């Protein structure tokens, strides 16, 4: 009874923040602290509802919340809260709530507060709506809306040209992914229409249960692309993944995420660490039955995810900007999540469990890292690590919480027990799955990627810790500990980063594996994997001891390296970390991607083509039109000279005309 009553309120989860957006946007200026209280209350309410529904669902994972309403034409909007959505909802509303509270203090000096809180409220609404949508179209709509909010918030300080440019870059880069996503939806819709024989009343073809029920037929459809026979399902899933690549900052569309740090730090924590960027992972998890039934798609996911994890890690170790290090870390961790999903080719549904587990844990510790960074920036006013140092004494709470977050990120814990930070349980699971995948398919590349990335993770995050909190200040500043309204959220998140993984480890995975077997959808992952040609094995437990300890070993190794270089300062960095060192320069310049993208792709090719098209085609078309006009005028200019004004000429012309006409008529008559 309680649960049904709660279902009635499910629609309020996204609606309350949306209302808060309207109120704060129009009346925020007249309220104290920019009307922050409105979104905080709304999101708190959303969090309570989400948590209540999640708890209800925990007891009975079969009975998911599912409501659908007709939207326009044959499409619908609806609510689907299954285990996957439930944990995401709770996490998003919880993290968003904490960050909103934190932002009251963080943004207190900014004149644009009402706008800030309105936009974050809108973002939260869109993100919640994304998570609980029961069809692919609503998911896409929310997907775009979170992109818009991200654009608005990155460009929050729009008077800074770099912020405006970063906002534009973020929007455009993710837009490339969005177009792929949209293309996937378009192909999916038209395929479903063909398979279902048009739209029947009462069924919404784009709802996930309908989509999943057509997976076998979809995978049977073949298309011929450049001579390769490709299943439609593969095309669709790869296009979906293209959208995820854009949103979740995977290679090669990750370039916007580091620049997105131009926004306020709270925005980075909320959007570019905890929630929006994980939407891509969520999308792949949500449509996991399609991915596992599509040959090759999961392979692409795994490889790209693993590569991104490593690739971003290499850049993370040379960045000097506090937030950029965290940005690259985020990209790297998102790569882990993608890798985890991709490993579903071997471990089946467990992949969703470990990946989303990592997503949730990451949300806690990465939001915490960003908020700590924000606390530092708020107190010190700079975010360049070369100018910081020795902050540990000035800001003890920040330092402690950030250290906890770093431990969680690096994945410290004792294998085989439930002792460990959150990141340990989820990252370890992914690396172990990668090992299992390697053992099973004799393909060790994902494992190597993941273990190398784990080492880099440990190095760059402890480099950050040591450079910021230990040693002596490298510039003049007067730091102070942040007020309680900021440190309390930090502490709460720190607790979660520390113990959430250990407490929920087994229950979480089991809960999430119920996602695709309940009253809404009921698909047999095993048989779908068969369609996709993926062989599943029974999961972990019998790996060699070394494999279980390996992640911890590399994490400790990373810590040791960072300790030696940045705490003890035993190695002179001047020689290595200079622009003369080609490797350092390559990393520092981020593999010259910016140059490659802007100058080669966008400027060189697109702009060149555009120039050609504009200059040539438009001028041609226009000059044809103008030319006809000029020609008409010119010809008449010449022709009017016939009017000599002399009567005799006219008479002669008349006579000649009449004569010729008669001859002509005569000739025609003869011929006919």
């Amino acid at each position, binding site marked *: 009874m309680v649960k049904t009553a709660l279902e009635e309120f499910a629609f309020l989860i996204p609606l309350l923040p949306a209302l808060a957006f309207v109120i704060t946007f129009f009346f925020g200026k007249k309220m104290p602290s920019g009307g922050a209280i409105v979104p905080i209350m709304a999101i708190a309410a959303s969090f309570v509802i989400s948590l209540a529904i999640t708890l209800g669902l925990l007891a009975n994972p079969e009975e998911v919340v599912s409501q659908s309403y007709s939207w326009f034409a044959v499409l619908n909007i609806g609510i689907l809260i299954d285990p996957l959505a439930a944990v995401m909802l709770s996490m998003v509303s919880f993290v968003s709530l904490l960050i909103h509270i934190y932002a009251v203090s963080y943004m207190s000096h900014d004149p644009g507060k009402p706008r800030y809180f309105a936009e974050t409220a809108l973002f939260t609404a869109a993100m919640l709506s994304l998570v609980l949508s029961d069809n692919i179209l609503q998911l896409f709509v929310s997907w775009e809306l979170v992109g818009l909010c991200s654009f608005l918030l990155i460009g929050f300080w729009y008077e800074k040209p770099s912020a405006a440019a970063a906002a534009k870059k973020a929007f455009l880069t993710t837009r490339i992914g969005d177009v792929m996503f949209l293309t996937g939806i378009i192909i999916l819709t038209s395929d479903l229409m063909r398979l279902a024989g048009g739209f029947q009343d009462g069924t919404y073809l784009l709802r996930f249960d309908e989509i999943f029920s057509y997976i076998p037929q979809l995978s049977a459809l073949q298309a011929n692309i450049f001579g390769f026979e490709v299943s439609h399902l593969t095309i669709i899933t790869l296009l979906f993944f293209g959208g995820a690549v854009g949103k979740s900052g995977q290679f090669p569309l990750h370039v916007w995420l580091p620049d997105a740090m131009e926004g306020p730090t709270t925005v980075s924590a909320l959007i570019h660490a905890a929630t929006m960027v994980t939407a891509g992972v969520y999308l792949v998890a949500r449509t996991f039955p399609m991915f596992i039934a599509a040959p090759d798609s999961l392979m692409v996911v795994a490889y790209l995810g693993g590569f991104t994890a490593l690739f971003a890690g290499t850049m993370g170790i040379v960045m000097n900007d506090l937030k950029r290090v965290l940005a690259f870390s985020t990209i790297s961790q998102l790569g882990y999540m993608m890798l985890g999903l991709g490993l579903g080719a071997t471990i089946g549904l467990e992949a969703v469990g470990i990946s989303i587990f990592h997503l949730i844990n990451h949300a806690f510790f990465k939001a915490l890292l960003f908020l700590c960074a924000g606390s530092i920036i708020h107190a010190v006013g700079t975010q360049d690590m070369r100018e910081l140092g020795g902050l540990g004494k000035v800001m003890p709470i920040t330092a402690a919480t950030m250290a906890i977050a770093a431990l969680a990120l690096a994945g410290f814990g004792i294998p085989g027990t439930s002792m460990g930070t959150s990141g340990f349980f989820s990252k370890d699971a992914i690396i172990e799955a990668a090992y299992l995948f390697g053992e099973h398919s004799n393909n060790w590349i994902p494992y190597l990627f993941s273990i190398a990335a784990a080492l880099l993770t440990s190095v760059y995050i402890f480099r950050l810790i040591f450079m910021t909190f230990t040693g002596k200040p490298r510039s003049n500043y007067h730091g102070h500990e942040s007020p309680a309204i900021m440190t309390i959220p930090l502490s709460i998140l720190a607790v979660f980063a520390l113990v959430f993984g250990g407490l929920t480890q087994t229950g979480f995975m089991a809960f999430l594996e119920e996602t695709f077997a309940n009253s809404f959808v009921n698909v047999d992952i095993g048989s779908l994997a068969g369609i996709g040609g993926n062989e599943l094995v029974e999961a972990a437990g019998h790996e060699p001891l070394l494999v279980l300890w390996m992640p911890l070993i590399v994490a400790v190794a990373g810590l040791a390296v960072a300790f030696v270089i940045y705490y003890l300062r035993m190695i002179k960095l001047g020689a290595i970390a200079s622009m003369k060192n080609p490797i350092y320069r390559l990393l520092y310049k981020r593999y010259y991607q910016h140059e490659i993208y802007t100058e080669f792709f966008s400027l060189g090719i697109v702009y060149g083509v555009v120039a050609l098209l504009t200059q040539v085609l438009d001028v041609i078309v226009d000059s044809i039109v103008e030319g006809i006009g000029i020609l008409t005028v010119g010809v008449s200019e010449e022709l009017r000279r016939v009017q000599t004004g002399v009567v005799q000429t006219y008479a*002669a012309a008349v*006579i*000649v005309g*009449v*004569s010729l006409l*008669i*001859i002509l008529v005569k000739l025609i008559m003869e011929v006919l």
Partner: protein
Amino acid sequence: MRTDRLLAFFVALLFTAVVVVGAFGTSWDTVSELPANPADQSNIEAIGMLIFTQFVAPFEVLSIVLLASLIGAIYMAKGEGNQ
């Protein structure tokens, strides 16, 4: 000047040729024999009758045209200055 005249000559020649060829090349639907009435060659009376019966309206109009053109001609020829 010469070419003008030559041109005019050819135009006139062209027209003559066209009309003459047309006139001689057509079989005209005429009476086979002209009404020979040696006694009374004149048909003035008949014409007069026609003008004042069938064509009386055009005749009246024509008279007005003549009158108008005469007045106009006199007015113009007289000019404005010399009353």
